[in-house]
């Protein structure tokens, strides 16, 4: 009996062996004896009973094979007539006679050929009773079509189905089982062995004898670090190692950095890791390698598994992010990058579908990886087999819809945060010292403004030839007692302000342009709506409205309670006063990086006008979460703007192409990825293609009266400065003063620039700021309304759903979400001790990596379509123990590697055991395993003495061959043949250009979770080992290395041969093997002597031998 059947049996009144079946039916009939059997007009309660209890069963369990689509065995179950007619074997239903009806017999598993639903455990007893009752009552079946499964269409039906499925074995909490006692308990020191051996005994089998120490050593190296043992380790291990010696080996391997490299690669299969998005252009996934490095460090640090999972789901939100012990950077946030390792295409014709598909992939990866469940099956309909509803699916999608992709800006070493704090403090000091200093300067009549303007206008309009320019400026400064440097800057600004259409703050102060310098600015058209669309009024979003979300350091708002220090910043030339309400990334320092994202809004108009300033920064409109705009503008033409306005606010518009996105949800991203800055005042959504007027700049004061324009300039600037110093409301003068100060145009004379020392200090601090680490990550967005999409189609939104974890695991109630996306609460629910899957799934994965196959063979599917566990009690024992042990993967691996079960020989030596347990599910021996492509390549490099153990960093580009297609233009780098000799985990995973060697050896296509790789066995593998230039290259390198180890003529090559053999295979060669290798050497001797120097010939001879060893099955298989 399978364990699955056993778990089902408790709702089954009698033993499942089959003999009790008829007895139960009889008993059931007796119970129903009083029920009226007459088949008359169906009454309402019969119809209700059918609709509620029976039809849902027929629809969800039978219809796929016996419905309108296909009719297995000629049977349909969607009408009474069809059931009465039946299929190839006769009528399915005999009304009034359940115990003779084939439908009932089939669902009751009455016989081996009469067991439905096919290949599934028997249904719960309650369901069978309902069916029996329905048939006995006359099989009432109202005409009409089946309802389509979907939670909104037959909610009561789903409740029933759900109830029957939620007791599935994997959904029940693991209980710590009693440890069995096999006959010979001395052999089984660890409880794991007792479980395995007791099971073998029960089948009349025995475990295999232990593997040789050499094989054991090679095996633990393979599973823990993925690298072959060094000959020295082999020698030290000896021929009869104690358990302590074995434990020391395992501890040493677990402590090796290579452990994390090996196990990170396993994990990368689960999260469909890749360095590029695939599809036509194969654009790079930015910073993907940071996630890979995170994994390596996390496995090496043995981060408790629950914590590791929480970091994946909500590492950006955890209250106490984990810091790297060496550098001090935030590790936790890096984990969230895994969400975005999906495939992506540029220019999706239907962005909503594209978005839904990406979220689907995220849910798929999440649920398979962490839960061993296929939740994505519930995208279009309630799960066909598991207790997962469409509602569940969209409840999970809601977390993702309330989150956004981020390129996080991470403090590299902790110093960025402290320096930033100190910068804020100094701004505070600056602010405090500015008021008295400005007041004092104003008392002395500083700063001078008007004389500079007059002089600059004069110079600009005099038509001075270029070669005489600096002399004339210096002369004018001398004559007028002005500062030459400041005057020079004034001339530059006057020129800029004179340009046609300029919005320069000096513009209103220029004298009339009779000479043609400054034409009157063209009036900006007043804001009007086009008559075509008045459905939605224009709207404005200000940067200080609620709901904007900063990420990184750049947009850090001033700390509360710091008074008005937030109104000045240190610009490149001088101080700058900030208008209130600006979102400004250079508030504290231009070097800071980060993003500011708007709340989500619907695109209601054809144009978005942004009032902003900035330099070397970007604004992006993100529509339907589409993330490839930075690579390709197609279909999203105007949604990204490079911002380079200088310091002044100006209008920029996103216009063309927005119409096609009308109604879609979007948000704005202000991106500061470098030393520049970006500042946003507000956003206006409108159907008017022109930005609103009046312009943000105030009208000049010299409009009437005919007085020369500079008159009043000094006073205006002084009044502005005074209003600030006196804490009075700042008029237009303050903006003007700020604009001039920022440009270095204010001459403070003898009083000196106020707070110049503090400004200089701040500048120095800014220059020394470390650059942040940028990494792919998730961040919170606005909470978006979430709805079921009927049949998965974004065009047919259905009922709303709350953000909630799976009902089968967390109950039906709503989750208490404090704020934000709710991912933190989600992460807590996933890692809750009451989640029965979390630990079962991970201990099973570890088991699978150590033994070649999981206790649950379908490591990614613990649902009804997965295979049931071969050792259910052992699985629970491990899961409970793992949780109790704090979720330490290293301790779990250590324990398992030291079991007798692990240490068994893998020889298929016992014919009786092979016959009884051909697929070795009972573990009567270890499994022989072939190295994965990555481990094979690592082994080639390591054996050849050629492996570069450098860790971390950007991926090594894949080496391109003529056989990888002709789309070389898609990529920009061709990697070296030997991959820089770095471990395989550091080799690039370009979706369009996967390493041929890895693919040949079953690298999974990075599409969704693959916990169990294919084990293909194809000639291309042999061809690669025979003729791949990389393999040949390593054979040559190895030959060189071997010869260099003991140069000079070798009288007897046997010693060398032994060394080669031990290095590659971890054991001494047998005499026959030595002979075979000597033969090969002798055979190549003749040829080798034919040309070139003796040294070259020697290398050629040994190359063939090294290559031959690579070609042996023992090299690619770990026994």
């Amino acid at each position, binding site marked *: 009996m399978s364990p699955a059947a056993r778990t089902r049996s408790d709702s089954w009144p009698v033993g499942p062996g089959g003999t009790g079946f008829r007895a139960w039916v009889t008993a059931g009939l007796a119970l129903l004896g009083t029920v009226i059997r007459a088949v008359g007009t169906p009454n309402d309660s019969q119809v209700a009973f059918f609709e509620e209890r029976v039809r849902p069963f027929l629809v969800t369990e039978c219809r796929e094979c016996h419905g309108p689509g296909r009719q297995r065995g000629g049977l349909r179950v969607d009408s009474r007539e069809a059931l009465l007619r039946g299929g190839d074997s006769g009528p399915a239903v005999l009304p009034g006679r359940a115990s003779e009806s084939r439908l009932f017999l089939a669902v009751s598993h009455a016989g081996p050929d009469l067991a439905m639903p096919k290949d599934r455990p028997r249904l719960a007893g309650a369901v069978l009773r309902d069916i029996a009752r329905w048939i006995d009552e006359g099989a009432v079946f109202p005409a009409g079509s089946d309802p389509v499964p979907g939670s909104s269409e037959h909610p009561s039906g789903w409740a029933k189905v759900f109830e029957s499925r939620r007791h599935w074995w994997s959904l029940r909490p693991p209980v710590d089982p009693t440890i069995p006692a096999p006959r010979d308990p001395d052999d089984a020191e660890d409880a794991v062995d007792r479980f395995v051996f007791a099971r073998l005994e029960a089948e009349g089998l025995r475990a295999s004898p232990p593997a040789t120490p050499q094989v054991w050593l090679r095996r633990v190296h393979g599973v823990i670090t993925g690298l072959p043992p060094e000959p020295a380790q082999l020698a030290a291990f000896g021929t009869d190692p104690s358990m302590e010696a074995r434990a020391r080996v395992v501890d040493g391997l677990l402590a090796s950095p290579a452990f994390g490299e090996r196990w990170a690669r396993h994990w990368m299969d689960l999260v469909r890791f890749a360095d590029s998005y695939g599809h036509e252009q194969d654009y790079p996934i930015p910073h993907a390698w940071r996630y890979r490095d995170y994994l390596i460090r996390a496995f090496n640090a043995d981060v408790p598994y629950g914590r590791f999972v929480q970091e994946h789901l909500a590492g950006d939100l955890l209250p106490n992010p984990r810091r790297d012990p060496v550098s001090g950077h935030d590790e936790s946030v890096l984990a969230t990058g895994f969400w975005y390792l999906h495939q992506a295409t540029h220019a999706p014709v239907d962005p909503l579908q594209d978005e839904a598909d990406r979220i689907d992939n995220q849910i798929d990866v999440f649920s398979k990886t962490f839960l061993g469940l296929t939740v994505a099956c519930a995208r279009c309909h309630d799960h066909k087999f598991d207790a997962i509803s469409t509602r569940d699916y969209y409840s999970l999608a809601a977390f993702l819809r309330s989150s956004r992709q981020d390129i996080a800006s991470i403090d590299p070493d902790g110093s960025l945060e402290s320096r930033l704090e100190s910068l804020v403090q100094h701004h505070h000091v600056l602010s405090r010292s500015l008021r008295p200093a400005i007041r004092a300067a104003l008392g002395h009549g500083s700063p001078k403004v008007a004389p500079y303007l007059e002089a600059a206008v004069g110079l600009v309009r005099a038509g001075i030839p270029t070669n005489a320019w600096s002399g004339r400026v210096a002369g004018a400064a001398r004559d007028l007692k002005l500062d030459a440097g400041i005057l020079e800057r004034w001339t530059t600004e006057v020129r800029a302000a004179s340009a046609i259409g300029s919005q320069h703050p000096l513009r209103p102060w220029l004298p009339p342009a009779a000479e043609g310098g400054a034409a009157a600015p063209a009036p900006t058209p007043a804001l009007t709506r086009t008559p075509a669309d008045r459905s939605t009024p224009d709207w404005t979003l200000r940067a200080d409205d609620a709901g904007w979300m900063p990420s990184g350091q750049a947009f850090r708002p001033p700390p509360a309670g710091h008074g008005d220090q937030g109104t000045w910043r240190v610009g490149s030339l001088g101080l700058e006063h900030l208008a209130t309400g600006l979102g400004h990334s250079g508030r504290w320092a231009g070097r800071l990086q980060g993003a500011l994202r708007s709340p989500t809004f619907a695109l209601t108009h054809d144009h978005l006008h942004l009032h902003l300033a900035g330099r070397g920064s970007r604004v992006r409109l993100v529509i339907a979460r589409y993330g490839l705009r930075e690579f390709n503008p197609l279909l999203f033409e105007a949604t990204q703007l490079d911002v380079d306005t200088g310091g002044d606010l100006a209008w920029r518009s996103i216009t063309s192409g927005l119409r096609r996105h009308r109604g879609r949800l979007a948000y704005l991203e202000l991106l500061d990825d470098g030393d520049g800055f970006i500042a946003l005042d507000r956003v206006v959504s409108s159907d008017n293609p022109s930005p609103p007027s009046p312009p943000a700049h105030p009208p000049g004061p010299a409009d009437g009266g005919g007085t020369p324009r500079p008159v009043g300039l000094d006073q205006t600037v002084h009044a502005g400065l005074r209003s600030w110093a006196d804490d009075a409301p700042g008029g237009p003068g303050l903006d003007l003063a700020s604009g001039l100060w920022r440009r270095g145009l204010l001459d403070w004379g003898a009083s000196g620039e106020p707070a110049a020392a503090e400004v200089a200090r701040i500048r120095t601090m800014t220059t020394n700021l470390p650059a942040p680490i940028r990494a792919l990550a998730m961040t919170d967005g606005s909470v978006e309304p979430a709805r079921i999409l009927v049949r998965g189609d974004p065009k047919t939104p259905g009922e709303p759903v709350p953000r909630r974890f799976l009902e089968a695991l967390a109950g039906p109630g709503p989750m208490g979400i404090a704020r934000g996306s709710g991912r933190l609460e989600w992460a807590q629910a996933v890692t809750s001790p009451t989640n029965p899957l979390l630990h079962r799934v991970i201990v099973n994965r570890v088991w699978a990596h150590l033994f070649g196959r999981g206790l649950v063979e379908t490591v990614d599917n613990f649902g009804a379509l997965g295979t049931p566990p071969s050792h259910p009690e052992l699985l629970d024992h491990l899961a409970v123990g793992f949780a109790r042990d704090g979720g330490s993967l290293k301790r779990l691996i250590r324990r398992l590697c030291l079991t007798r079960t692990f240490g068994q020989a893998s020889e298929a030596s016992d*014919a009786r055991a092979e*016959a009884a347990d051909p697929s070795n599910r009972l573990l009567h021996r270890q499994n*022989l395993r072939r190295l994965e492509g990555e481990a094979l390549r690592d082994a080639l490099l390591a054996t050849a003495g050629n492996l570069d153990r450098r860790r971390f960093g950007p991926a090594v580009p894949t080496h391109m061959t003529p056989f990888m*297609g002709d789309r070389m233009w898609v990529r920009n780098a061709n990697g070296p043949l030997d991959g820089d000799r770095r471990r395989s985990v550091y080799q690039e995973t370009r979706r369009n250009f996967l390493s041929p060697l890895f693919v040949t050896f079953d690298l999974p296509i990075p599409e969704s979770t693959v916990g169990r790789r294919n084990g*293909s066995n194809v000639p291309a593998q*042999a*061809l690669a080992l025979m003729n791949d230039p990389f393999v040949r290259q390593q054979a040559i390198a190895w030959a060189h290395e071997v010869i260099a180890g003991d140069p000079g003529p070798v009288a007897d090559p046997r010693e060398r041969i032994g060394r080669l053999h031990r290095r590659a295979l971890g054991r001494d060669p047998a005499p026959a093997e030595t002979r075979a290798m000597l033969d090969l050497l002798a055979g190549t001797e003749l040829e080798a002597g034919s040309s070139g120097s003796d040294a070259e010939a020697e290398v050629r001879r040994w190359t063939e031998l090294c290559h031959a060893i690579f070609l042996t099955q*023992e090299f690619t298989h770990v*026994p």
Partner: protein
Amino acid sequence: MSPDPGTAPEAALPRWSRRRLLRDSALGFGALAFSALFPSQAAPGGWAPADGRPRGTHHRARARNVIFLYMDGGVSQVDTFDPKPRLSREDGKPFGLRMEPTQFEDNGATLGSPWAFRPRGRCGLPISELFPWIGSRADDLCVVRSMVSRFSEHNAANYFLHSGTGMSGRPSLGAWTTYGLGSENRDLPGYVVLDGGLIPSGGVDCFGSGFLPASHQASLFRNDLPALANILPLESRPDLQARKLRSVRALDRTALDRLGAHDPLEAAIRNAELAYRMQMAVPEATDISGESAATRRLYGLEASSEHTRAYGRQCLVARRLVERGVRFVELTCTRAHGNARWDAHGDLRNNHSANARAIDQPIAGLLADLEGRGLLGETVILWSGEFGRTPFAQGRDGRDHNPHGFSLWMAGGGVRGGMAYGSTDEYGYKAVENPVEIHDLHATLLHLLGLDHERLTHRFGGRDHRLTDVHGRVVHDLLA
């Protein structure tokens, strides 16, 4: 037929009996491995590639092999095999039917075909003057004019045409074929794609094995020598490799003695054997230098257009592969019109002329050559794109994608030649009579090969999968 999930197909044989067969053979296991290195020791009969053991057919097969002439980008049906006089009459006028959404939404007026049709062959099948050579083989052709697809975008439509699902990651038609029938040649892979230079939109995933064992994925051969990666030995002399492999065999034998007979080891050793032979067989099969001048002329290898010559080489290699027992050969297109394939969003006239010129003579040559060698009766030729093109213009001189009705043709084993099946409306826009789905095409092709599309299943992820999912019917009217 439902082979054991996720295990090597040999598992379908009783394990011990097979092993006994190996052990009991006169020379033991070693004789089997690397038998090619010891030509004097013949392999026992019934040898099969590691993963290519024929599973047998469900019913009598009408054909043994498939050559799929994939017409990348979508050929215009109304300019090739589906004449529509009304289009010409209304050329330049507003289109007479409601237009479905198109890829580019740049729909223009009704666009008559620039090419004339005339009846060809004894059957009188009307064929466009684009294909004078293929027209001469009209009596071989079974034209389906009522094809429909479900996707109007290349990637999804290509995955659909190749694998029956509009997404990547599913086994392709060729993979299902070798999965069902195994390989007939012990020295060559069973499923080969001859790369003409244009990998279809959607990439090599179109030729994948999906969840089927990896040995069923296509081997992609370049249209050049060497055709395959790692096929050429790197040793300075051929005998060095043989000598080395013999040593390896000796070493493997001791490993087997020590480790016992593990299926994966045995399979790997057999694969090494196949690999060794492929080093000779693949270059031999793809090297056309020994073909006669007449044959070369037949395939257009002496034509003035380099694209005709390139496609002619592909067709000739296809014949050589089929001749040698390769089950499924697909040809991708050449760059006859830059990278545009048949995807004539503009400049229809030059696009289709150039593409037709490249394939016309080679395909006719292939049909004639197969017939002359007695291979046509056992080989199905399929000529199809992923969809057709709109009868109305895109812009002024192009045609957009049209999955609502298009044409393909089949020829060869079990196919009724000289006929047209189904029809589109008067404009050639939508299939109206006897529409044929891609699933139906797949079901029919498998049927010709002796496979029942409902019974050719593979259990994966807990359920049985088929090429045709829950769809598909054999179109018996197309069968001879």
